[in-house]
């Protein structure tokens, strides 16, 4: 067993709901005492329905959401950070090691920048390259890896379809050479025929660049195909986590079973028999 890259230890994330003058305001427990470990080099799936807290947890690992309790640690062998309590200079370095791929390939790209500028922005912001030539070289390299046509780098995002835009966002996230990538519903907005292409691309990039992925999705069948370890979230809590094969072959938690039963089969004769999950409490 290799060492964990990300260790989430008893993490809670609470958001205050409105303000109250007296007493403590009510809080939304977006993430509630969650612990998990993401092995280095793994493709870790985080599944849940809307409002389960999966996006918040993913953002907290990138320090884009506040952590109310518990610790998240990052350790890639070279450096180790306590993500919840990280200095300004360290955060800069951490940003180049942990990146995010967005769901909506339309909103995540600035309509006013060329593809080259979009992909180059992280390099320029972090000052990772010393000259424009070096930046261009890195941009071309990663764009080629993401199977983007290099002649299209001068274009603006409005020239591209959903799948191509998602490839641009992936290239942008990977240009600074991160070790850990959070893909938040990275294929949810794409058409079926394109979705498989992006999933295959993520898989091959993981192998080539030695990446660790946290793949957040609501779609169990997609997660089943790309991830090697899966955690199922419901109302801010992890219901079950196991290696993918084990989880799908033999789900132990009732919620996982309900979730699996709700997926409509493509076989018309395999009738849908969805059960509604009722938490025992």
């Amino acid at each position, binding site marked *: 067993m290799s060492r964990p890259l990300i260790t989430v230890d008893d993490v809670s994330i609470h958001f205050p709901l409105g303000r109250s003058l007296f007493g403590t305001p009510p809080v939304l427990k977006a993430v509630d005492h969650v612990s998990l470990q993401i092995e280095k080099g793994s493709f870790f799936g985080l599944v849940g329905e809307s409002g389960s807290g999966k996006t918040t947890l993913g953002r907290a690992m*990138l320090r*884009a959401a506040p952590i109310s309790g518990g610790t998240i640690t990052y350790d890639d062998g070279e450096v180790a950070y306590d993500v919840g309590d990280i200095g300004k200079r360290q*955060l*800069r370095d951490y*940003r*180049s090691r942990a*990146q*995010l791929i*967005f769901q*909506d390939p*339309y*909103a*995540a*790209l*600035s*309509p*006013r*920048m*060329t593809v080259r500028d979009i992909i180059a*922005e*992280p390099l320029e*912001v*972090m000052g990772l390259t010393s000259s424009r030539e070096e930046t261009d070289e890195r941009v071309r390299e990663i764009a080629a890896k993401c199977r983007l046509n290099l002649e*299209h780098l*001068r*274009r*603006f995002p*409005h*020239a591209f379809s959903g799948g191509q835009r998602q490839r641009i*966002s992936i290239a*942008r996230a990977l240009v*600074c050479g991160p070790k850990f990538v959070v893909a938040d519903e990275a294929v949810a907005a794409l058409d079926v025929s394109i979705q498989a292409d992006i999933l295959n691309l993520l898989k091959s990039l993981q192998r080539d660049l030695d990446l660790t992925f946290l793949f957040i999705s609501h779609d169990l069948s997609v997660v089943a195909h790309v991830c090697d370890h899966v955690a199922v979230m419901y109302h801010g809590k992890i219901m079950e986590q196991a290696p993918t094969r084990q989880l799908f072959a033999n789900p132990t938690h009732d919620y996982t079973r309900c979730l699996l039963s709700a997926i409509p089969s493509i076989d018309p004769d395999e009738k849908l028999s969805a059960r509604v999950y009722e938490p025992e409490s």
Partner: protein
Amino acid sequence: MTTTTEPSAGLTAPQGKAEKARDRAKEAYFTASQGQLVRARFRKNRTAMVAACVLFVLILAGFFAPFLSPYDPTIAGRDKGYLNGAPQMPMFCDHNGCSARPFLHGVKMELDMATLRRTPVVDIETRRYIQFWVQGWQYSYLAFEVDLPGETFDMKWDGITFSTHVFGIDDGFVHLFGTDGEGKDLFSRTLHAIWTSMAVGTLSVLIAFVLALIIGGISGYFGGWIDSVIQMITDAIRTVPAIPLFMAISAILFEYAPSMTAETRFFVIASILGLIGWPTLARRIRTHLLAERSQEYVLAAQLCGASASHVIRRHLLPSFTSYIIVDLVISFPYMVLSETALSFIGLGLKDPVNSLGVMLKNVSEADVLMNYQWEAIPAVFFVVLVLAFVFVGDGLRDAADPYGDKR
């Protein structure tokens, strides 16, 4: 290219050419920046394009007003012999035959025995020919003067002085739009008034805009309690009714500084308009900033460690320029309207200065309305100017919406 490849190239040329042209057009669209797309969309909007042309002509006319107008628009250029005179249309033919050069008949002032007023009478036997490129009254561009108490900071530069005018007449005066009660040429006054009104508008929009950008920008970028406090102040200012406030401010100013020169008055009016006009603009800028700040690409930039200044410079400002231009153009006619309204009720600019409001005020007298309707010609220009701005503003707004025709 070698000679052997030429024949085959020639054979495939017709299809290849059309395809290449299409590819080029496509690539041009794909590599077009937002600014270019906005311009292309604006050009397709016919109303806005017509309005833009009209506006351009008006601005040119305003800028070249001294050159285009034959007479000094102030009292210095009055035509004593043609008070409240009707417009004169140059003609090419009369009962004595035709001429290639347009001319006017002579005018004499005679005492009307019925009304006992001296009225101009046309003498159809004499001809006065229109001349082009004539020398006349002097005017200068870029002249400025600083006259502060003491003498150290006083500066004066006469600018570049000209005395050439596009047209004039042999003998006497030509009044295309007629004259007012003091004999000032209405054509010259209208052209100068367009410039003055636009200058007041520009100055007040700029003042309002700088305030709005700073206040709305702080409010929108930082949010939180800063935003709440600023919004409270903004709302308080917005609730003050404009006209009574104008009246109060001008009353105070003119009470304590009655000897203000026309220029000072001009700056005071523009500043008042600017100081009152910013809250609406500030609120729009704030709303836009708030919306833009929560865009995913801004988060994406922040996630790679971008500083606030990088986000503002690289993402917020560029996304902003189109909105800013649109906002400025849209708020411009309101400034012109306010200036006109102020001057119309007598609190703004005053007679020796020519603004559209001042000229409209003159028309409100019953005597003028009944007898000298041509003095309302500036009103037409006023309406056209405001409409042109409104249409251009609307067209720009439609064109600037980044995903207007997508999604």
